């Protein structure tokens, strides 16, 4: 079991930590959960499933027009062929950004999110301000992410109220015509696939990549 060290070791565990520990102990004792299963679940979502999956899908769509068309027509089928299947990705739809129209995804009622292609959602996606404002003031929300769209670009917001999960296909950055799928993947951020940012530009890679 891994362990975070956000607080000093001498600090006693919080009521919340004790409450969770008590519940886990009880569930283990009752035989309702298994310790090895808990660890496997955490391992899966902390290290295996993540936005690399989605970036792969996007890079393929940028590279292959036939794949792109099939993806837009039936994302569930196309993405499952890549092996990105499972919980919170049972029904997938890909929505395409263009110069005229920008897509943004939110779940106002809880925090539905396409786990199979993006992993678990970041804190801000689950926060009350994002859930409240993405539908009513998306342009201001985008500005908080440093994304400033031309006034002429229409903004279309997808509120995931059912079990359909939405993935944004960002616009392919300029100057990447001869790039391989592996290279293109590096430009596809998680935030771009939610729709709060654009894909990275080639010059961003030099600045930001470790």
């Amino acid at each position, binding site marked *: 079991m891994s362990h975070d060290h956000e607080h000093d070791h001498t600090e006693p565990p919080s009521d919340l930590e004790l409450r969770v520990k008590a519940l886990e102990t009880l569930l283990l004792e009752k*035989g309702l*959960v298994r310790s090895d299963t*808990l660890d496997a679940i955490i391992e899966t979502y902390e290290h295996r499933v993540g936005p690399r999956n989605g970036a792969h899908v996007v890079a393929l769509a940028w590279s292959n027009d036939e794949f792109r068309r099939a993806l837009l027509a039936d994302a569930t089928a196309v993405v499952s062929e890549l092996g990105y299947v499972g919980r919170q990705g049972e029904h997938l739809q890909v929505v395409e950004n263009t110069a005229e129209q920008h897509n943004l995804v939110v779940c106002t009622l809880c925090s539905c999110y396409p786990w199979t292609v993006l992993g678990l959602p970041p*804190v801000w996606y689950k926060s009350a301000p994002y859930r409240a404002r993405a*539908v009513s003031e998306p342009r201001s929300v985008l500005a908080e992410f440093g994304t400033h769209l031309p006034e002429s670009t229409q903004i*279309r917001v997808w509120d995931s109220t059912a079990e359909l999960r939405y993935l944004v296909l960002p616009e392919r950055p300029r100057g990447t015509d001869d790039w391989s799928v592996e290279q293109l993947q590096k430009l596809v951020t*998680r935030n771009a696939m939610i729709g709060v940012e654009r894909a990275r530009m080639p010059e961003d890679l030099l600045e930001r990549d470790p």
Partner: protein
Amino acid sequence: MNGAHDLGGKHCLGPIAPESEFSEPVFHHEWERRVFALTLATGMLGQWNIDESRFARERQHPQRYLANSYYENWLAGLEKLLDEKQMLTSDSSSRWRAASPDCAAQLLAAGSPTSRAAQRAPAFACGQRVRVRKLSMAGHTRAPAYVQGTTGVIAQFHGWHCYPDQRARGLDSAEPLYSVCFTGQSLWGPNSEASEVLIDLWEPYLERAENND
């Protein structure tokens, strides 16, 4: 239900303040890992569905719901379900068997598709104007308040899907599901920043609207 979870369009909630994608961890605290895994693992016992989970998280005092972090709301929901299903009483726990890691991996990979066989022709066609009914009842629903009473256009038909309002009560039920497109102006007035908002809504939420609505 009219709860604090129904956040679309609410005001005064402050800035979003995102962490950087390049430094934000998947979990911020060890207890979050445990709550996440416990929720998924107990869910594998098959005693509740995802709508019951959501409803359990929603059914909190609004002040509590808003004060809680995301995984605190998961924890509150899990505790409520375990209590309501009486799964922690000593005599009942022998009924269930914890999933093994292999079994869990299979369950996670399989997911829980919600599409169901069609029972009849859908009531609405793409392009048709529909109004979202007002649904101010105490049970679970997935029609956000901000679209209730508003008119939109059927954009897509997704076939039949499990119907949350019934499934949150543990009942098996499916209804036609549509993506409905609302103009931002119809939702937020003439200065709307959103051009269009698309929302997935089940047939019972909708009624035919006149073209001039």
